[in-house]
């Protein structure tokens, strides 16, 4: 019986020579780096918590129309500043609008701003960073100095300046947030590319006769993804915070858009009278940012080769 099994095994090996080939196969499984990272991430409780928080808000945003009978614009002057109750889970604001509804719709806005601001900053920052790091010389000088100039201003001040030029709206706030985040990605990518450029496998690619574009796309970029992914996740939280700050200052989404930062600003006057108008949007911002930071930290650990056991 034992013998039969062995024979069977050998046959399998013979049939699939390019798959697992012996009994040690478990050890040298064909794991891709991506798979390993995900496995590592799944072991991290904090990262899972962060992930669940984000999923919660995502569901809240997507299913907002189903989850609540009210519209985010529906005013109800009779029922203004109600305490949380069965009808209004999180109470109502000074115009009688349901706060839960506004937070649910607001989740859409925050995630939308966070996502596109990060994507925009990531694309432009990565491109500039690669050019600066790979080609060096005057290109690096030029791009790095632009980054320095952008970083010399407090980011929120810069965002205010951009919005002041473009006019206040949600989209312009998004563009402003993307712009102030470009140098953060750019510098990160630049430093990574500079170190990778000296790697032997990049030299090898050059020695094979590959063009710069191919070397960058297939050899440098995939190997500099780890810090970019981590920064993008953490940047998500920052972008949402910045969007809320701009909203709070009245430079982001305009009423009646249920933007969390704007909701905070609107509730300032009723702080003592109706604290729930302030607490719930505030807690939402905090939770989302916390969620992204937890995922970001988890990713950093999972992608760091020194943390591998």
């Amino acid at each position, binding site marked *: 019986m034992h013998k039969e099994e062995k024979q069977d095994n050998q046959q399998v090996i013979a049939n699939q*020579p*390019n*798959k697992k*080939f012996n009994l040690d196969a478990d050890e*040298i499984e*064909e*794991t*891709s*780096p991506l798979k390993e990272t995900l496995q590592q991430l799944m072991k991290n409780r904090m990262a899972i918590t962060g992930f669940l928080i984000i999923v919660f808000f995502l569901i809240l945003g997507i299913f907002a129309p189903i989850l609540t009978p009210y519209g985010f614009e529906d005013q109800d002057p009779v029922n203004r500043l109600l305490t949380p109750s069965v009808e209004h889970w999180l109470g109502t604001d000074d115009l009688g609008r349901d706060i839960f509804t506004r937070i649910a719709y607001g989740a859409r806005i925050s995630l939308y701003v966070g996502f596109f601001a990060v994507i925009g900053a990531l694309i432009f920052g990565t491109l500039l960073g690669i050019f600066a790091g790979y080609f060096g010389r005057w290109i690096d000088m030029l791009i790095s100095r632009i980054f320095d100039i952008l970083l010399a201003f407090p980011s929120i001040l810069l965002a205010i300046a951009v919005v002041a030029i473009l006019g206040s709206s949600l989209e312009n706030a998004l563009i402003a947030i993307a712009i102030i985040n470009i140098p953060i990605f750019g510098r990160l990518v630049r430093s990574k590319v500079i170190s990778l450029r000296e*790697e*032997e*496998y990049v*030299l*090898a*690619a*050059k*020695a*094979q*006769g*590959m*063009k710069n574009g*191919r070397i960058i796309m*297939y*050899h440098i970029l*995939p*190997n500099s993804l780890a810090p970019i992914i981590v920064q993008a996740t953490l940047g998500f939280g920052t972008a949402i915070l910045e969007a809320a700050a701009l909203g709070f200052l009245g430079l982001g989404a305009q009423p009646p858009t249920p933007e969390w930062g704007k909701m905070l600003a609107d509730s300032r006057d009723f702080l003592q009278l109706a604290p729930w108008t302030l607490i719930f949007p505030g807690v939402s911002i905090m939770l989302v940012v916390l969620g992204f930071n937890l995922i970001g930290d988890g990713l950093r650990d999972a992608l760091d080769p020194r943390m591998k056991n």
Partner: protein
Amino acid sequence: MTEPILEVSHLKKYFDIKGGVFGKSVGEVKAVDDLSFTVNEGEILGIVGESGCGKSTAGKSILRLIEPTDGSVKFEGTDLTDLTSEEMRQLRKNMQIIFQDPYASLNPRHKVERIISEPLLVHGMKSSKERKERVKELLEIVGLEAYHASRYPHQFSGGQRQRIGIARALANNPKLIICDEPVSALDVSVQSQILNLMEELRDKFKLTYVFIAHDLSVVKHISDRVGVMYLGRMVELTDKHTLFEDPKHPYTRALMSAVPIADPDVERERIILEGDVPSPSNPPTGCAFHTRCPYAMDICKEVRPEFENVDDKHLVACHLYN
């Protein structure tokens, strides 16, 4: 006498030392300083020298992986330093390099198949089926199995990785391979396997190697001719038997006397050099070796010795002989 396949003349590579507020260049490291030698088709030229003498820089400068500061490199009559980067790129399929560290020279995110087939793709083998076949063939040539193609580099041992590196270098049937200390990162037992493989491949594919190493026994084993480098310059170049039996340059003699002999009873004279290797950012005037040379004369401090034929095909850069 056949035409030399590679002719390196007066090759120089100086690295700028940046300093000061505006990153001005405040000096230069003369990593390779006026290096000249030729390599004949089908031979293995060993280049030895201690750490930091510029062997690797020379190897990379020849392939223009590092742009040389000055001098010329002729490959089959074409001066590589004159080519545009696109012409150079096309020519690269004829000249390859095997790196020292097999752990760093393979892209960790690519499977072996991708690693070996990418040079085929960039030099015009468009059909993926052909490439697959060729990868399989190459893996077998270097002593691996076809199923290894679907694995990642981290799933291999050092020796196996170096075989992958060799397979990659062989992909486009190059004529010249520069081996930049290809075995110094490996265990001794694996070293001999790789060396034997490389010799086999040389015979099979009529390859020419420039074999850079710091291990004299490795160089003695594999090379036809051996060049000795000191501080960015070639001090002696001749065929390996002459070099090991009748070294001329005082530096080579000191080097040879440091080779261990596998017999504890053999008495011999050890030439122990005084001091350290001078800094390549401020090399001595005249002969670079005069600060440590037991036979240094006045002329050595002022005039740089020419790299000349002393005996039949025995080049030495030393005032003692010229």
